[in-house]
């Protein structure tokens, strides 16, 4: 056992902090920023993405030939923790490409696809931005129920159907799309395939779905006779479900270190706030209820951090992580929820103020997190779906659904 980072990893941490000082406004917090929503935020995100790419950080764990640095999983984890802590924009470019399309293409794509798409993502350019077409109106948690179909005609596939909750589709150049290609199959998990689709193709319509926070994150995407070259099929036809399960593990595993960083920052900000705020002539930090709540949040954040480290360690040993990312994600959304709620309780009536309101506290990040956390417990597998996975594969219990 050893619970410390190597000198190389600590140096990277310092380098990223230097980058934050140089490239971001001095009072930047940026936690819970829905950067794909407003044009000015997206512009900033993409300009930072380019800078991260030039430093070789954007896709640091990828092999050099595809635009990475061959960094270790631990360097990647340190980077993600810092990204979360400082709220560095542009690190995910709409999430999909950097986090799971790239890693999945490396596992299942052919050489031509790797050479074409990976360097584009790694460049931090608008042409490297992806969205992901998984969910449909009748295929949410029961994701194998997808109906959007692709039928082969000559050396093309013709795609018809609808996707929903498609984050960043309005900014994306490419779509990582799951469709049905097999129709008379024994199980609905069979006959699913993955495609790379150019979002500029004829027949694609993107319609915004505005979230209750007022942000434009999601979209509905309609495919009406969209023609895609057969060479855009990823891996083998009909094996999509297997690829997707791997991609989802990446998605769950990849975002947890970022959440660790975000939660640690929120905790630090709340500690600073209660030390600098008086109520009735007494510092908030002297209130025993507040002290104990923050102590509990600190325990949860530390626990989440250990989960992220343990999962990364297992992956670094070459182990296939099956239920661990689900553990981290389910627990992580709980941690996020509790710290957001504690934040609102500490800020009291001020927690309602919009980030740009004159009296807003801690730059409105508590409001951001409060509005966002229910989304964390749903995206990439709801808390209940994660519990099903942990029950089945972590505890060996019978399938419960």
């Amino acid at each position: 056992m050893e619970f410390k980072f190597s000198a190389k990893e600590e140096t990277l941490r310092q380098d990223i902090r230097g980058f934050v000082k140089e490239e971001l406004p001095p009072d930047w917090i940026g936690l819970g920023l829905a950067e794909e929503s407003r044009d000015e935020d997206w512009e900033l995100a993409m300009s930072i993405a380019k800078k991260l790419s030039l430093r070789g950080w954007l896709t640091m764990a990828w092999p050099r030939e595809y635009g990475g640095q061959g960094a270790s999983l631990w360097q990647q984890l340190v980077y993600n923790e810092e990204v979360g802590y400082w709220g560095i924009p542009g690190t995910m470019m709409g999430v999909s490409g950097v986090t799971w399309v790239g890693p999945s293409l490396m596992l299942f794509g052919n050489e031509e696809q790797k050479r074409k798409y990976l360097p584009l993502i790694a460049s931090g350019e608008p042409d490297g931005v992806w969205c992901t077409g998984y969910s449909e109106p009748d295929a949410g948690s029961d994701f194998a129920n997808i109906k959007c179909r692709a039928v082969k005609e000559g050396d093309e596939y013709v795609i018809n159907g609808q996707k929903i909750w498609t984050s960043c589709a309005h900014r994306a150049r490419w779509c990582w799309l799951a469709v049905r290609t097999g129709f008379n199959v024994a199980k609905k998990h069979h006959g699913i395939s993955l495609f790379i689709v150019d979002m500029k193709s004829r027949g694609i319509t993107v319609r915004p779905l505005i979230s209750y926070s007022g942000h434009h994150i999601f979209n509905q995407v309609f495919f009406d006779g969209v023609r895609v070259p057969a060479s855009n099929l990823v891996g083998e036809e009909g094996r999509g479900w297997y690829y997707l399960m791997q991609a989802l593990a990446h998605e769950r595993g990849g975002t947890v270190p970022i959440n660790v960083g975000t939660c640690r920052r929120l905790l630090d900000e709340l500690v600073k706030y209660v030390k600098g705020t008086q109520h009735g002539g007494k510092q908030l930090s002297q209130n025993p209820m507040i002290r104990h709540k923050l102590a509990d949040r600190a325990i949860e954040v530390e626990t989440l951090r250990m989960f992220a480290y343990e999962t990364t360690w297992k992956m670094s040993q070459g182990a296939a992580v099956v239920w661990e990312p689900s553990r981290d994600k389910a627990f992580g959304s709980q941690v996020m929820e509790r710290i957001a709620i504690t934040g609102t309780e500490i800020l009291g009536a001020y927690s309602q103020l919009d980030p740009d309101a004159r009296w807003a506290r801690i730059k409105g990040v508590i409001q951001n997190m409060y509005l966002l956390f229910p989304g964390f417990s749903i995206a990439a597998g709801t808390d209940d779906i994660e519990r099903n996975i942990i029950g089945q594969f972590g505890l060996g219990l019978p399938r419960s659904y």
Partner: protein
Amino acid sequence: MDFSLSERQEMLRAAAAGFLAKECPKNKVRELEQDDKGYDPSLWHKMAKEMGWMGLALPEEYGGAGGDLMELTILMEQMGKNIVPGPFFSTVVLCALPILQYGTDEQKNRFLPKIANGEQIWSMALTEVSGACDISGTELRASLERESYFLTGTKFFVPYAHVADEFLVVGRTSGAKEGISIFVVDSRSPGIKVEVIRTMARDKLCLVTFDDVKVPRQSIIGKVNRGREPVNFVLQRAIVLKCAEVLGACEAVIQLTNTYVKSRVQFDRPIGSFQAVQHRMVDRFIDIEGLRYLVYKAAWELSNGSPSNLHISMAKVKATEVYQRTCIDCIKNHGAIGFTADQDIGLYYRRVKAAEFFLGDADFHRERIAVELGL
């Protein structure tokens, strides 16, 4: 970062698991709950001689195995899993560790080999009727007259005092707030009265009264009026090792409940296939996973000379909460049979409060965390 056990640690874990499964089955635990001594001398001697556990973390020159705190952590986890009744914790953790750290050569040579070979049982008399786990509750007076101290006061919640050969007694040697010293006291000294208090864990917590008990001046461990440091030293280690014991207990509880919900059939299906039951299992499983890594990290830091009071207190709050929730939810998952004496789960449930209020409860440690956070 490395989460793996070393070969030596893995061997210790496997040996402890195998030995305890064979030598300390639950019917023995139940027997010892009714036994006046509360421990099995033959098991005690096997643990000392065959397994070398009393000296596991003591240097070879005192008859020990030269292990470290991480190994003791791994052993305590296995002991917690099996519930091993007896004065191991009080002898080794509460007494041998501070003697090794703060004792003179003469004291170490005199006491440690007897602990290592299982000859002596020790206990620490720290807490008093206030229930405080640190020196803030210390009122027992020790007054110096010529070459002897005279101890007068009452200690409460002293584990296995009724079978101890020697005590470490925390007493007040000056009126100053910090004027605390630690004494080695022979349990047969005149003026000592020991009363076993019945607790729900049947774990032999004692009330010990000291009435003008005479001890030689050189019985102090460490420096006079400087007892705070060795007490903190003991607390840091004892908390982490108690948490390791709780971790083992929680692992055992979820494991036995897992077996039960897989085999118990209702509505023609194992009840573990129902989400209400399964998700409750999963929530506790996640809790235990978290507890494990908080304990290992705090233990590793201690073992490597960089103790963190923040992480130690985090482990204690987590252990307290997780132990209780795990037992309660797992009893619920058993249904009515979980309420019966012949199921093992009740043995664990009856030990929750013993762990909770030993060495500082959750609120005590939340406050310490708040201080460490800068509040």
